[in-house]
């Protein structure tokens, strides 16, 4: 179990620092506009959504989203409008179909792979311990001796 802690710690660290893009909505536009804009990339920025960025093109995107909402268009229709112009690249979350499934499955596959490696490593370690033919008590006594030195 002791060997597991570093892995669990790293996993925890990843979860703590993993964040989804969220923006503080300036008061001029409806929060609904930002809800959609946060799902779209700012075309001229690196790693910023159209909801967070203050670039001219993002401001225009928010303005267009606001106009389309006023016309009664649905969230899906608005996202489609931008996909027709920029391709699926504009979406932060790629649609779950075709090769994109691989993207969605990658984190789970990675975890499985790490888990498998860990399991193999621990099994191997246990096998070696057993090969030495020491009982757990003898092993503890030896470890205590080593620590004293």
């Amino acid at each position: 179990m002791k060997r597991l802690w570093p892995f669990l710690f790293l996993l925890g660290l990843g979860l703590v620092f993993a964040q989804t893009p969220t923006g503080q909505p300036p008061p001029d536009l409806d929060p609904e506009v930002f809800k959609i804009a946060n799902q779209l990339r700012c075309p001229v920025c690196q790693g910023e959504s159209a909801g967070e960025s203050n670039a001219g093109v993002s401001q225009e995107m928010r303005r267009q989203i606001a106009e389309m909402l006023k016309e009664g268009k649905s969230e899906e229709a608005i996202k489609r409008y931008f996909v027709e112009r920029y391709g699926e690249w504009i979406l932060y979350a790629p649609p779950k179909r075709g090769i994109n499934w691989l993207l969605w499955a990658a984190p789970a596959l990675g975890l499985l792979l790490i888990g498998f490696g860990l399991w193999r490593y621990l099994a191997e370690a246990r096998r070696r311990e057993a090969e030495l033919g020491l009982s757990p008590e003898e092993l503890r006594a030896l470890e205590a001796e080593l620590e004293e030195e």
Partner: protein
Amino acid sequence: MKLSRLVWLFVILFLGWLFYWGLHRNPGELKSVLVGRPAPDFTLPPLPPFREAYGETFRLADYLGKTPIVLNFWASWCYPACYEEAPILEAAWERHKGEVLFLGINTQDKEEKALEFVRRFGLTFPNLYDPRGKVGIDYGMYGVPETFFIDREGIVRYRHAGAIDAGTLEKRIQEVLR
């Protein structure tokens, strides 16, 4: 070699290839989804110096499907890229004005700054004013400068991101002239 070793070797080689591929990708090479599709129509007011020749409003549909078009998005704040390509565009327009329509779209800019830019480079091809940058979004533009080449059927053939050089410009013009 054990099977599991082979599997691990494959996984490591695959990750290595993925890393190498990611490092060598040119982020400017994002292909426009518009290529091969009809150019989106728009209506914009020309900047004041071009109103006499082109009227108060300019509608792209009046020209689409009749003549090849070079559509260039620019802004006065786009330095140095837009400043580098402006004289190149003007020179190419001088050579091709009978056969290709050059169209400048000033994007997200102030009118007086745009006019200063037009005067500075003595631009004579029509330049339209789009302070909101609405047309840029219709064309899936990433950032100024960007140049679209539309053939005489009105189909978008190429998109060039960044300042264009004389050689590339001429090559693309010849391709839409065919």
